[in-house]
């Protein structure tokens, strides 16, 4: 649960930033950035996890620096699991945020501009509030997806109960033990309920926000 919360907590702001850049600016390398963001969606999760291991592993280019400077180790820790989840759900968040950013009327930003609002002022007071339904939905769906993340997490952060174990990992482990079917079934039910609740909340919150925005 905390793994997923942290993944969304760190992933979402970055996703908003990337989505904003992709939706508003045309620059060389934009397609490349777009492709990179969407890569985890099409890549087998195990490959993503393995790539993370290469980059953020203790001997990896980023991982070694993190270890040397901050003493932070990502591999096989719950932080690492969060990172894996964040990367996996990043495309979902970016897509959702970007779609809602694109529905924001640029004329409103122009209006804010003529009223004396600078770039960040416009972003925080006009653009983001108006895109909030998409941001929220993106966050909730990403959270639910994180809870179910399997491939990248097991590769990058392993399967440590109480630390990096996500729901499917727990279910998988339970199934490995003779007589664990009961536990697996219970966990599956929990998973089902969480997914359903997540979708319902996102639907409801989206509607409420849209109503507040007068759509």
């Amino acid at each position, binding site marked *: 649960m905390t793994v997923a919360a942290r993944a969304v907590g760190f992933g979402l702001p970055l996703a908003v930033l990337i989505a904003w850049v992709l939706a508003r600016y045309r620059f060389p390398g934009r397609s490349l950035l777009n492709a990179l963001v969407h890569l985890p969606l099409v890549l087998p999760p195990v490959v993503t996890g393995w790539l993370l291991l290469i980059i953020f592993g203790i001997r990896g280019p980023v991982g070694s620096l993190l270890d040397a400077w901050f003493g932070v180790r990502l591999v096989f820790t719950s932080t690492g699991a969060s990172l894996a989840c964040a990367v996996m759900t990043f495309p979902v968040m970016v897509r959702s945020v970007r779609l809602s950013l694109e529905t924001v009327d640029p*004329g409103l930003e*122009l*209006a804010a*501009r*003529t009223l*004396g*609002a600078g770039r960040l002022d416009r972003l925080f007071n*006009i653009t983001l509030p108006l895109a909030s339904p998409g941001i929220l939905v993106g966050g909730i769906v990403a959270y639910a997806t994180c809870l179910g993340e399997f491939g990248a997490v097991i590769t990058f952060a392993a399967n440590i109960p109480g630390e990096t174990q996500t729901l499917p990992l727990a279910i998988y482990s339970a199934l490995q033990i003779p007589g664990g079917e009961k536990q697996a079934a219970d966990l599956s039910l929990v998973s089902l309920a969480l997914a359903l609740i997540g979708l319902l909340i996102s639907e409801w919150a989206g509607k409420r926000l849209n109503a507040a*925005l007068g759509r």
Partner: protein
Amino acid sequence: MSLVFRLRHRFPSAQTEMDMAFEVPSPGLTVLFGPSGAGKSTVLSAAAGLLRPDSCRIEVDGRVLADTNCGIWLPPERRRVGLVFQDSKLFPHMSVATNLRFGMRRTEPGLVEYNEVVELLGIGALLGRRPHTLSGGERQRVAIGRALLAQPHLLLMDEPLANLDAARKAEVMPYLTSLKTALRLPVLYVSHALEEAMQLADSMVLLEAGHVMGYGSISEIAGRADLPLARRDDAAALLLCHVAGHDHGRALTRLESGEATFWVPLLDAPVGAGCRIRVPAREVILAGKAPEEISLHNIVSGTVRRVAEGPERHSALVEIALSGGALLSRVTSDAIARLRLRSGSSVLALIKSTSIEVLPA
């Protein structure tokens, strides 16, 4: 004080270069008038700072907003130029009051007071509501208020009434008229509705195909026979008048414009009140000497200043100079020949009192 504007710009897709320059008095409402594609929106975008033309200089009351020759180009957010959009562009996630305060909170306090604007625009009852619950006319009034409260040095209005139906237009119009007199502010107002322009404008800039055909006070521009306006079917001269007296017995009101006197059906306005009258060119009859025993009330003497070709074959437009402006008359070429009219001739203009349209000032 004045508003000086000069712009040269060539759009990548356009054949010719736009080249527009005009100077109009400030404060005052200047209508930019012309067909679509004439360059009206380009002028507004450049004035707001949203479009950077190849070369441009904008000066309002001695304050330079832009001068590309000296590298001065204030960005829109620091230019203090208010813009009212055709479709209001109110922020949907804020209440009317928050919308109104948006620009106000981002600038130092100035001459425009919150309560005064709310009262002038009659939006006091709407303050707690959300933009999507307002009617089109209400939305435009709030948008105007929002722009004004940002304490602009120049207010731009991009066809603010274009998306409203006739009833809503009639609802917003009086607010615009009263605003115009209450605020000491230059306003550039884009319109392609002549009626609206005639009622609101102090000055007018006529644009066509990226060039200025003429600019000046509204009565000057409306009374010129050589401008495209005069060739329209609804061409009419415009005169600024004041109510000089009422004749209740005859149910007539006497209006004065310079030395010319006009009798119109009794008005409900106090003596001394200002108003403007529209005299359609097709309703003005010309005469060499005054006819006797005639039903019409208005025989105005003037001097022919210009005779221009009319919109149809064998027709002509005569511009008659009065002390307070000019009248236009659309007659046949034959009439010109018979009366031997040329610039400088004295002539009498005969106008039925019911043909004169009185606009509220």
